[in-house]
């Protein structure tokens, strides 16, 4: 075990995956010599050489397109898009190509790539450094979409993603890179070194895609969430005094139905939370899944807490971000429902 930040855990995952398999190549804007604008690939070029980890031109469509070509050859590219907000030029390559290559060629060609990108808000990044576009990927057949909430899971999920035979969208909540942010922006930053999930096992391990984690066990109500909102939910539970069971989904597609249904059956109440905009967000899918499978256990309507349906603001970040106050209010309302 080593205490790590999420950045260090992601770096470590790359190192482990690259050491075990020389087909793993890493590239993206500024990821080579510099090691990425968030330093997630720092040291990889030095350690593995310029042919395993390198910079690219600023062309997201090109980054994903060549990764697909390399995957077709038999490599396992793990690429970085500098911010999730900049993935859109690559959307065609992801949706029309990577996602469907296996199916359309009946397994003749596959796209075993991992596409990493920082996601979410909390850094005063305005509308082009704060978006949470996960549902644009979860809606696409053929893609897997994962999002860790802590260093331990980040490492295990990234290794699992790189080793996975299908394209994986790997979303990294940037506000969690250096500490478990719970939405209390006015408080001092808490480092990962003070958090149990900052304990990262050495060497190789995986967190299987499709396995959720019970972040906090509780009997009153279930919070289904992921990414930064896991920590916000923890704060909301503590502050509201509600004994919430917080499920960190970790993997949106595939989704761990068992953990979800077991929890909601137990608590009978459910709140769904994400940073992304509300309409057609992944929360809508979660609501549908819960009512399909455990409707008879529900004692209250499922509540959704999400970003407002506006572009992500700059000055009004904390009026926009669904922090512990908003989530706590939804939890209290769900508890009060009779």
């Amino acid at each position, binding site marked *: 075990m080593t205490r790590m930040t999420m950045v260090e855990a992601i770096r470590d995952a790359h190192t482990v995956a690259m050491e075990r398999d020389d087909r793993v190549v890493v590239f993206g*804007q*500024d990821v080579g010599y510099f090691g990425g604008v968030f330093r997630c690939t720092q040291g990889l070029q030095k350690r593995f050489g310029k042919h395993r980890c390198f*910079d690219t*031109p*600023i062309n997201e*469509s090109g980054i994903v397109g060549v990764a697909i070509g390399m995957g077709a050859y038999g490599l396992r590219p793990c690429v970085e898009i500098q911010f999730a907000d900049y993935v859109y*030029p690559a959307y065609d390559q992801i949706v029309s190509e990577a996602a469907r290559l296996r199916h359309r060629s009946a397994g003749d060609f596959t796209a075993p790539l991992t596409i990493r990108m920082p996601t979410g808000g909390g850094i005063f990044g305005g*509308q082009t450094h704060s978006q949470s576009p996960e549902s644009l990927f979860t809606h696409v057949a053929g893609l897997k979409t994962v999002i860790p909430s802590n260093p331990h899971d980040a490492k295990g999920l990234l290794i699992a993603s790189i080793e996975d035979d299908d394209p994986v969208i790997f979303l990294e909540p940037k506000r969690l890179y250096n500490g478990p942010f719970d939405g209390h922006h006015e408080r001092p930053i808490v480092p990962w070194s003070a958090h149990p999930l900052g304990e990262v096992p050495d060497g190789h391990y995986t967190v299987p895609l499709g396995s959720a984690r019970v972040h906090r066990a509780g009997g009153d109500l279930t919070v289904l969430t992921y990414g930064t909102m896991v920590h916000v939910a923890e704060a909301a539970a503590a502050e509201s005094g509600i004994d919430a069971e917080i499920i960190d989904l970790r993997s949106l597609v595939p989704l761990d139905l068992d953990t979800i249904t077991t929890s909601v059956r137990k608590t009978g109440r459910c709140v769904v939370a994400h940073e992304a905009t509300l309409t057609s967000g992944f929360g809508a899918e979660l609501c549908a899944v819960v009512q399909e499978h455990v409707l008879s256990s529900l004692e209250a309507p499922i509540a959704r807490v999400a970003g407002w349906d506006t572009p992500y*603001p*700059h000055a009004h970040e904390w009026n926009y971000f669904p922090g512990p106050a908003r989530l706590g209010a939804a939890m209290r309302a769900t508890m009060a429902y009779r």
Partner: protein
Amino acid sequence: MHVVDAEAAEPDGLRLRIPEPKARPGDKPVFRDLLIDRAGEVRRPPIDVRPADIVDLGAEMIRVLDIHGDAVGPWAGTLDAEQLRRGLRDMLTVRIFDARMLQAHRQGNTSFYMQSLGEEAVACAHRRALRPDDMCFPTYRQQGLLIAADYPLVTMINQIYSNSHDPLKGRQLPVMYSSRDAGFFSISGNLGTQFVQAVGWAMASALRTDTRIASGWIGDGATAESDFHSAMVFASTYHAPVILNIVNNQWAISTFQGFARGDSPTFATRGHGFGIASLRVDGNDYLAVHAVSSWAAARARANHGPTLVEWVTYRVGAHSTSDDPSAYRPQEEPFTWPLGDPIDRLKNHLIRIGEWSDEQHQQCVAEVEATVREAASEAERFGTLRSEHSSPASMFDDVYATLPDHLRRQREQAGF
């Protein structure tokens, strides 16, 4: 005679070329490969020249100011002394404004800033060569376009501070200005998108037999984006009245220009395959920037089609307040940049022609510093990022032309 048949010689295996800059931290900076012509040596073709007849200009470098500070050659003479002094003041304003805003960032008045240190001539001289109603589609590093359009500094700072007088209502990242009146299209954080939009604006102007032209902007790194190529093909196909500006400041965050340029000798030569008139210019030479911008504007306005210009300059500062260039380039590199400093060069020229003095310069600096300081304190009265903003309810405005029901409900739920 023994001839080695290159086609028959195969290596044991293939090997990929990964570009590397000439110098990294700790190395001596080198600009050996920079193709520089002597001032005054590159010809000035007529504005109706066929692109095919000026392919040499894509690899040469148009320069007006020589090492003595004289304006020489066929591109000299587009500006009188009064205009030159105004140009110097524009550039000084940009530089002093940038310095003040970096300080404001350190003080916590804003979340972010991007300076254009060392490349002030490009935007400042270009804007003065356009007409006020021409439309620029800038990147985040063309604050000079606004300043040389006499846009109020206090309004810029209001935007940077996201304060209660921010015309963009606290929505945009600092420096992502927008001003239709100042011919300055709303800046996007997504690289390259504006380049092809500039072509569309120019096409619209031509569709309506208007006389206005557009000017699109992109950085060297961002020319790798597909939108750069979209712009080129549309401009070429429709002969759009647009100036397509590439600001080659040598760096794209930590990535040197060799990644976007590949094996092309210059960025300007990118235009040749599209049949677009393409020029390469000393971007730290205010006179050259003005002369070439005027040429390209006249060409566009006379319906002779688009011009691609590579402005060769150097990003002296960090990419942004989130960046530290000492991690990827030699710390002395900015000081060895062969094209010098645009402000020093224009100042020396003005002194040489007897139209300026060190005393006047110092006085001008002091005046601009006072102006910037006053603008900043005026803006501070309207708040900073840490204090006063537009109402949070305004977040819900302008998502659509009229507020739809679901947003009205969300706004109520938010309690604004």
